[in-house]
């Protein structure tokens, strides 16, 4: 089992502490949702876990080895990362966009090897984009584009998948489909870490929820509670259902 862990990670940007002494451990097979108010440090934590940001103090370990000791290509072969609001700078086709997810495995020169075609087809199918395969990616709708980026992230079937707000801007149906896809990925043995703003979907699909407030871990548990939502977000919430129909109705702002 692969373990990704953060040990006393602190990050300071421009004199402001973004992460304070964050520690957590994540195992393959888990689907971890990171929730918290704007500016809580979710994106920073995800970048640090992805090995793209060197913490000011503390360290991130993959299988007890510091991330910094791995080469970028080695890390890329095992971990996929999708930032918040991913961009595409050239109007390339959806198929080529998804193929970019295989960059670490491609030969330095020459065309895309035929052997990668099935992986690309599968990723497109999982993200419901088969019909858009040859379309120019920059002409996709916002939701389609977000799914294309998700397909780009999963095409290499990474051991660790770190995604920053993957369902922001998706309609309810595709948001649910994407969450189901991420759960399925975890069930197949990958470690999935996603920052989310949809508390209901986080509670339903994630096997663990980390609540981050002001750069520190407020809670790291199986699920969310009304009390946690109040303390983290300053919002009164009403919980209902359980398991797959667990949900939160947000009522009104509350005093923290």
């Amino acid at each position, binding site marked *: 089992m692969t373990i990704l862990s953060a040990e006393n990670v602190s990050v300071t940007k421009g004199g402001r502490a973004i992460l304070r002494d964050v520690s957590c451990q994540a195992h393959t097979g888990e689907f971890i949702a990171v929730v918290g108010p704007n500016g809580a440090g979710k994106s920073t934590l995800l*970048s640090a876990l*992805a090995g*793209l940001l060197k913490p000011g103090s503390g360290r991130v370990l993959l299988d007890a080895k510091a991330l910094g000791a791995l*080469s*970028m*290509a*080695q*890390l*890329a*072969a095992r*971990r*996929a*990362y*999708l*930032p918040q609001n*991913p*961009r*595409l*700078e*050239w*109007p*390339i*086709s959806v198929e*080529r*966009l998804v193929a*970019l*997810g295989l*960059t*670490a495995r*491609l030969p*330095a*020169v020459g065309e895309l090897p035929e052997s990668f075609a099935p992986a690309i087809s599968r990723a497109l199918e999982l993200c419901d984009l088969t019909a858009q395969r040859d379309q120019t990616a920059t002409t996709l709708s916002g939701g389609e584009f977000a799914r294309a980026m998700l397909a*780009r992230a999963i095409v290499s079937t990474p051991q660790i998948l770190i995604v920053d707000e993957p369902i922001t801007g998706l309609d309810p149906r595709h948001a649910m489909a994407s969450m189901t896809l991420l759960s399925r990925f975890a069930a197949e043995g990958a470690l999935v870490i996603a920052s989310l703003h949809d508390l209901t979907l986080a509670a339903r699909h994630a096997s663990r929820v980390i609540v981050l407030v002001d750069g520190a871990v407020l809670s790291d548990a199986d699920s969310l509670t009304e009390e946690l939502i109040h303390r983290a977000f300053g919002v009164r919430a009403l919980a209902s259902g359980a398991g797959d129909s667990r949900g939160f109705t947000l009522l009104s702002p509350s005093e923290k």
Partner: protein
Amino acid sequence: MTRLNLSLVILAVLAFAASLLAGRVWLPPSALLDVIHQPDSLAATIVSDIRLPRTVLALIVGAVLGLSGAVLQGFTRNPLAEPALLGVSSGAALGAVIAIYFGLAALSPVTGPLMGMAGALAACGLTFALGRNGTVALVLAGAAVSSLTAAGIALALNFAPNPYAAYEIMSWLLGSLADKSWTQVLLVLPFVIVGCALLAMTGRALDALSLGEAQAQSLGVNLFRLTVLVVAGTALSVGAVTSVVGAIGFIGLVAPHLVRPIVGYSPRRVLLPSALAGAVLLLCSDIAARLVHTNPELRLGVFTSLLGTPFFFWLVVRIRRRAP
């Protein structure tokens, strides 16, 4: 894709042949055979001693400008990027002007290219160091570096020891392939080969970079290594050719744009066709510049600028229309 490359190679071969035959003295196609059969004839001498080195140099310079333009546009993800815009050409020009001004060029023929490459390296390094945070910053840094090098060149002109030195610098700056011999070709070739090899290695990383820096890094792209390849490759190739033929603008800007839609916009696939298109463009420009009978001759750099500027305007208008 390969069909495009093949068409471009055929065009380049045709332009190459035309460049050997066209000029103040038009030669019949049979003159090309004379080079082998009657090497002592006048036609053969014109072809092998005057037009062949000039044509080979045009091919090399065009390919270098086309390739470096494609790499720089892919690297900066900015459709306006080219060696001249980022200050690389003017850096090379300043280096070469210093070599001319202080008489270093007379010491050894290799001094010019070396100073040109040093200037290009300094300018390119400075631009990328200043403009690290995004494409707007990069273009502004390029403008700042260009101003700096322009000031340096103006200083050299100001204090030129005599009008002839000023004229020599000035006419060299306009860019020309006239009166070039095999010496110049052999002088730049090693640097061009190494520089282009470095630039050709950037393809995969440029493709990944179309997702932005964070995603490219997450895909295993070492941005530092990529920057070194781009800076060193551009400085070597563009620096060497600029120091020999002067500043020739717009080929690096136009060539990638011509081929990009045909290859589906993938930055890596633009590289080879853009180098070929650059070679074709420069060969044709040089032929055209030769055919316009003026006295003194119309300089190649002036000609490409006259042709390229409207394209630049069109590009600016199109970008403005697309911007929110």
